[in-house]
């Protein structure tokens, strides 16, 4: 089922939580909504589910306008951050709930419901917990039960709000891989919210980066990382440093020194230069290089991160060098930008 969100706005007491969001999700896609706290991710997800109604705009499931439908009619699987399991029901009753509450005409037979629930228990790899209560399960197990409960109704789309938010790092990693595999097998159109960019990058086909109730960029993980569409996306995704520069006829100047013709096609004037730690190389050639004083050196997995203070304003940026160099620089060093990204300052 493909989903089309068109110019969606949502206000809470005149506070705009979503500002004209448009998004196309293809059938069978796994999409991550990524953004800082308060950017409207949960709001967007709840609007798609029908748990909240838009101030304006519409939502289409395939060809039909879902905005007119109640949450019960939309047939979405929703997984809540804190699972929201029914604590007075056993795991198996939780999972079969969605089938049991159906009207008599649509309800499968008792045997069929039991079969479906136990198939789902196999799918979530918890065949032995059927008769336990939610409080007798670990966090990761509860999360999987919540997912099975959502899948039981054969939803048209699967919506997950920070599905791994409350779990420890190791369990998160396992569940991530498991969910990705599950998605490949079942092929549900899936939208999940996260503010862990590693999770978003690793799991999803496409990432939606949100900020302040707007979509900043939609793209594959590669596009988001390598071609950020805005200063916000650049600084939000991955590590980055920023330098204030000026552009004059395509040439970039840092404190009056030329860094070379890096800004072809960009308007003259002040600009913001964004650099990732891996975009800088140590060099001896001062031409077109950035020089700065080494402030700190830290070990970061397989690299060493050198923080340098650049120019009169002592703007700080980070440079990554291979840890194997065994090289601890001191004093002033020069670096050549291999890649960078420029945005006009406003």
């Amino acid at each position: 089922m493909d989903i089309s969100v068109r110019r969606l706005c949502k206000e809470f007491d005149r506070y705009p939580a979503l500002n004209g969001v448009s998004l196309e999700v293809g059938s069978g896609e796994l999409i991550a909504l990524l953004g800082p706290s308060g950017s409207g991710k949960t709001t967007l997800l709840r609007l798609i589910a029908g748990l909240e109604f838009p101030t304006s705009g519409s939502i289409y499931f395939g060809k039909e306008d879902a905005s007119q439908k109640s949450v019960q009619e939309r047939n979405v699987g929703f997984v809540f951050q804190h699972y929201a399991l029914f604590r007075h029901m056993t795991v198996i009753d939780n999972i079969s709930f969605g089938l049991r509450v159906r009207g008599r005409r649509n309800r499968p037979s008792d045997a069929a419901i039991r079969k479906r629930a136990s198939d789902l228990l196999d799918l979530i790899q918890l065949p032995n917990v059927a008769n336990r209560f939610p409080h007798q399960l670990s966090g990761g197990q509860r999360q999987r039960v919540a997912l099975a409960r959502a899948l039981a109704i054969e939803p048209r789309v699967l919506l997950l709000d920070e599905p791994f938010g409350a779990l420890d790092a190791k369990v998160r990693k396992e569940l991530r891989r498991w969910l990705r595999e599950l998605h490949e097998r079942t092929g549900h159109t899936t939208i999940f919210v996260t503010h862990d960019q590693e999770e978003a990058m690793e799991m999803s086909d496409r990432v939606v980066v949100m900020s302040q109730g707007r979509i900043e960029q939609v793209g594959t993980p590669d596009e988001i990382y390598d071609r950020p569409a805005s200063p916000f996306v650049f600084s939000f995704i991955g590590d980055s440093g920023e330098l204030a520069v000026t552009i004059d006829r395509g040439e970039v100047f840092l404190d009056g020194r030329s860094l070379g013709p890096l800004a072809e096609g960009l308007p003259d004037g002040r600009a913001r230069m964004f650099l990732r730690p891996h975009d800088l190389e140590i060099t001896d050639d001062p031409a077109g290089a950035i020089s700065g004083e080494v402030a700190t050196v830290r070990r970061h997995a397989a690299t060493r991160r050198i923080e340098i203070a650049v120019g009169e304003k002592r703007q700080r940026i980070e440079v990554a060098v291979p840890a194997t160099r065994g090289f601890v620089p001191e004093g002033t060093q020069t670096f050549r930008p291999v890649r960078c990204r420029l945005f006009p300052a406003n």
Partner: protein
Amino acid sequence: MVSAVLPKLKEPSVIPGFGTTLGFTLFYLSAIVLIPLGALVLRAAGLGLSEFLTLAGDPRTLAALKLSFLASLAAASINAVFGLLVAWVLVRYDFFGRRLIDAIIDLPFALPTAVAGIALTSLYAPNGWIGGVLEPLGLKVAYTPIGVVVALTFVGLPFVVRTVEPVLRDLDREVEEASATLGAGRLATVTRVVLPALLPALLTGYALALARAIGEYGSVIFIAGNIPYVSEIAPLLIVIRLEEYNYAAATAVAAEMLAIAFLMLLAINLIQAYSRRRFGHAA
């Protein structure tokens, strides 16, 4: 979903002071509850079996006990239903005058019971505001067992409202939303998801309202009319016997009340313990 485990005897526990608090609880319970009740039981035992049976089996006594307990059960049941509704409205809706209603709920706690009794009587008497309307319909409230139920309902209402309210307020909205996304309509969500979660609190409120109703005296005697065999409650009968200096009969009625009340509250507690375990509330 944090489940706390009560420390077992002798097991080392991170919660300090278990021995001290248990000791204090037992002492306190003995001084305030067990010793006076024990004295009552001793006194009753002193009567001798045959005399006790004669006194306890007295038709007027039996009629009074029957009225007391049936009316109390009825009142507590009415309160369970309407108290739940009131709690629901207070928690789930914001409307003009909500605070006022909230404050009014506690009035039966604070009002001297005699005042309540007189007020209710004047309302429900055949010439009162409500009684005047009901009388032509053939429904007599004051000076009948129905009047007893009305008074007991009045005094018991806050118990149910005040025990259910906080639990309902803390109920996770996401659970109801989850139910809705799974296709459950409002009615199914309320009956299958919300009510089971409220059941332990509702039972507590029911037990409290019941206990209060069984022991209630002041508000009932005005509206009941106190006709022997018809609208005379057991606590009143005890007072009457005392006034006749018939301590033996008073003791017998009291002992019977004690036994029945204890059994009823024990039963409710057992149901509650079962439902807590069943419904996964922290044991």
